[in-house]
């Protein structure tokens, strides 16, 4: 990814930029910033992954072995926060930075300098999160959802987490305003909204969701902060507040948030599947409407995370029906992808493998989602390993697999070099195997009654936990292979042809040299 440096040709005087570290600190170039986002998110993925390895190591056998309960809770909390806010979200923003201008024929992002700032906030927030392990009392231990009153009890680590969430929220809002403005104002002549690539569409909708809900998150953590230090009682019943109100506000952010993490994956997969099927995306406009419907519905389903908190019967029924309804537009997307593949002329390079793996496993996560939507069943599986399995099927084999698909798909455009196809396929098949080994058995654990967020468990859960832990270690190691493949590609990959994927039709492939020059589309292309 770093190889764009010095590869620009034919632009002469435009290419002056500082070199060395100052290039990265001061850059306003969307490609540099995209690259930094991607490396940052991968680093955070490894940190969050290391925490996951700790969790699975403790759960390898019954009994307390390596993590005392309090430290175990810190690991689960920070694993969740780092993966959601540090790994998955910034990775998608990295893709948006690289790809949105290239795919709509714009020279850069609309607010180039703000773009720099929204990236450089991230390492600050990450330092607060990771550093909180080393303050007195340790990191936040109330779960990534930090429900009060438990989170009011914590020490300095909770305050550091609150500030980190503030900073990450500010970064996300700036990033999404930038994306919205770029997409709405900087499209090449002739590229109407309904001609935009699906990836751009999904990011436009995602960015609106972010602008809608990130302030809500900022609000709720601020209320928590004042409850902790300034004598307010928003969430303290003794002072007239209500702990359940926190859950309502948090999930009003939190549920759209899960779609923020999945809609751009839909976009990536909707680019990859047509390319390798050599056939246009089936039902483009219904895909756009389905994405928009999912985004709108995602704002009215939040209380399905709270069926056991107690709410009126009509409340439970409303949130059950609304949640089940999301299966309809999601189903439309899956059917459209299938119809795109149908009677195509398919090849199965690594991006396509990850895209098909995504659909296959995401649908399993979707089914367990429908099952969780049904109130009586949810009351049984809520806060168990079933839910852990469900959301890892949508976040790991969903978001993460789509990110891998996107990385393999666009790396030739970014670096001008090809990755090693054999190793890429190994990466896919090992990920697929170990992912299912880790998470499939967790459905059974949850059904049989193992609660989440516990460091120790009854002997009846021992065998599945051991399988799950072994799978997790394998999955973790497999991701180092991805790091190797990417470094190998950037350093010494074979030179990529001008059009490495013969089915690709979007602007970055048809109108730009490979690798993309440092400054691209200074004169906008004409889209017919």
């Amino acid at each position, binding site marked *: 990814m770093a190889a764009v440096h010095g590869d620009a040709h034919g632009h002469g005087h435009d290419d002056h930029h500082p070199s060395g570290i100052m290039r990265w600190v001061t850059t306003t170039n969307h490609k540099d910033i995209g690259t930094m986002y991607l490396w940052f998110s991968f680093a955070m993925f490894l940190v969050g992954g290391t925490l996951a390895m700790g969790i699975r190591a403790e759960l390898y056998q019954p009994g307390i072995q390596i993590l005392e309960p309090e430290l175990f809770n810190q690991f689960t909390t920070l694993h969740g926060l780092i993966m959601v806010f540090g790994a998955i979200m910034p990775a998608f923003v990295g893709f948006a930075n690289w790809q949105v201008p290239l795919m709509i024929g714009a020279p850069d992002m609309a607010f180039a300098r703000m773009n720099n700032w929204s990236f450089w906030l991230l390492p600050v927030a990450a330092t607060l999160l990771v550093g909180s392990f080393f303050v007195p009392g340790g990191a936040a231990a109330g779960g990534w959802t930090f429900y009060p009153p438990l989170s009011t009890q914590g020490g300095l680590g909770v305050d550091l987490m609150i500030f980190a969430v503030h900073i990450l929220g500010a970064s996300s809002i700036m990033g999404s305003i930038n994306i919205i403005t770029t997409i709405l104002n900087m499209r090449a002549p002739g590229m109407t909204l309904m001609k935009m690539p699906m990836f751009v569409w999904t990011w436009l909708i995602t960015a609106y969701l972010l602008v809608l809900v990130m302030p809500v998150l900022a609000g709720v953590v601020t209320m928590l902060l004042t409850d902790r230090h300034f004598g307010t009682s928003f969430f303290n*019943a003794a002072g007239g507040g209500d702990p359940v109100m926190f859950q309502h506000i948090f999930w009003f952010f939190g549920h759209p948030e899960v779609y923020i993490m999945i809609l751009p994956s839909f976009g990536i997969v909707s680019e990859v599947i047509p390319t390798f099927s*050599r056939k246009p995306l*089936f039902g483009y406009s219904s895909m756009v409407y389905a994405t928009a419907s999912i985004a709108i519905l995602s704002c009215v389903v939040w209380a399905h995370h709270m069926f056991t908190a107690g709410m009126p019967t009509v409340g*439970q029924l409303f949130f059950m029906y609304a949640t089940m309804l999301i299966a309809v537009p999601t189903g439309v997307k899956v059917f459209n992808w299938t119809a795109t593949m*149908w009677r195509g002329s398919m090849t199965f390079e690594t991006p396509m493998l990850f895209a098909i793996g995504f659909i296959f496993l995401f649908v399993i996560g979707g089914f367990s989602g429908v099952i969780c939507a*049904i109130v009586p069943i949810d009351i049984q599986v809520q806060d168990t390993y079933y839910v852990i399995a469900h959301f890892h099927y949508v976040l790991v084999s969903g978001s993460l697999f789509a990110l891998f698909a996107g990385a393999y798909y666009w790396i030739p455009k970014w670096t001008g070099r090809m990755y090693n196809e054999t190793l890429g396929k190994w990466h896919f098949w090992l990920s697929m195997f170990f992912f299912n080994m880790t998470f499939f058995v967790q459905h059974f654990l949850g059904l049989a009654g193992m*609660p989440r967020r516990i*460091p120790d468990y009854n002997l009846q859960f021992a065998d599945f936990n051991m399988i799950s832990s072994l799978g997790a270690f394998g999955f973790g190691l497999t991701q180092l292979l991805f790091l190797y493949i990417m470094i190998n590609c950037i350093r010494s990959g074979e030179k990529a042809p001008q059009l490495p994927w013969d089915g690709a039709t979007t602007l970055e492939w048809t109108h730009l040299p490979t690798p993309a020059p440092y400054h691209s589309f200074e004169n906008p292309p004409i889209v017919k």
Partner: protein
Amino acid sequence: MRSKLVATLAGVLALAMYSSMAVGSKYNLPEPQSIIARETYDMHIWVMWICLVIFIGVFGVMFYSVLKHRKSLGYKAANFHHSTTVEIIWTVIPCIILVVMAFPATKTVIAMKDTSSPDMTIKATGYQWMWGYDYLQGEGEGISFFSKLSTPRAQVQNKEPKGENYLLEVDNRVVVPVGKKVRIILTANDVLHAWWVPALGIKQDAIPGFIRDTWFTADAPGIYRGQCAELCGKDHGFMPIVVEVMEADEYTKWVAAQLSASAVKTSMHVENK
């Protein structure tokens, strides 16, 4: 020949899936012991079947396509890219399936929420990290005790072998009579907890400063075990719930024993003053 093989394999797979659903608590929800748990269990199996059929349908088509429509087999790509008719069909059919799923669920939700006219009422209070129980109304009114994990610390630290009910055993069980509607009122003293007994089909958060309620009617005598299901701090994994369901006459004896024991305690308390 080949289609026969496919049919056989599909049959074996379906049978394996079905039997894995039926083998009991290791792969599925625990054996239900109340009407709500029974309805939930059946609903889960029913929804799983629907999901399985859709799964086989969708991925049957997709993998047929993956196998046949390959460039390496010389398959030439078609160029169709939309059809309003099929879009409408595959929007409407899922809606119908969802209605079919939602109908029985709605009936169960309404039944679950009906905590009216119980035979007895017990208040459960969550503490960091144990449960307190107060029998408020019905036979046993006035009984009150705490219920803590009874698994020795040495077992947790791997210094002693772990027993069968490791982490699922308590010093004082909640005792209730069989076949009676028991209303559980929940609250908490410090942070959120959740009172969960899988076999009885109930889970309800306990919220400090607020009262929530739920109910169950146990079908058969027995001992049913559960755990706190809402993260409540360091020892969240170490505050189990054990419900012992007794025949009516045994329950009466238990109540008498409890009440006389607490009477002795009270009188001793008075004398000591």
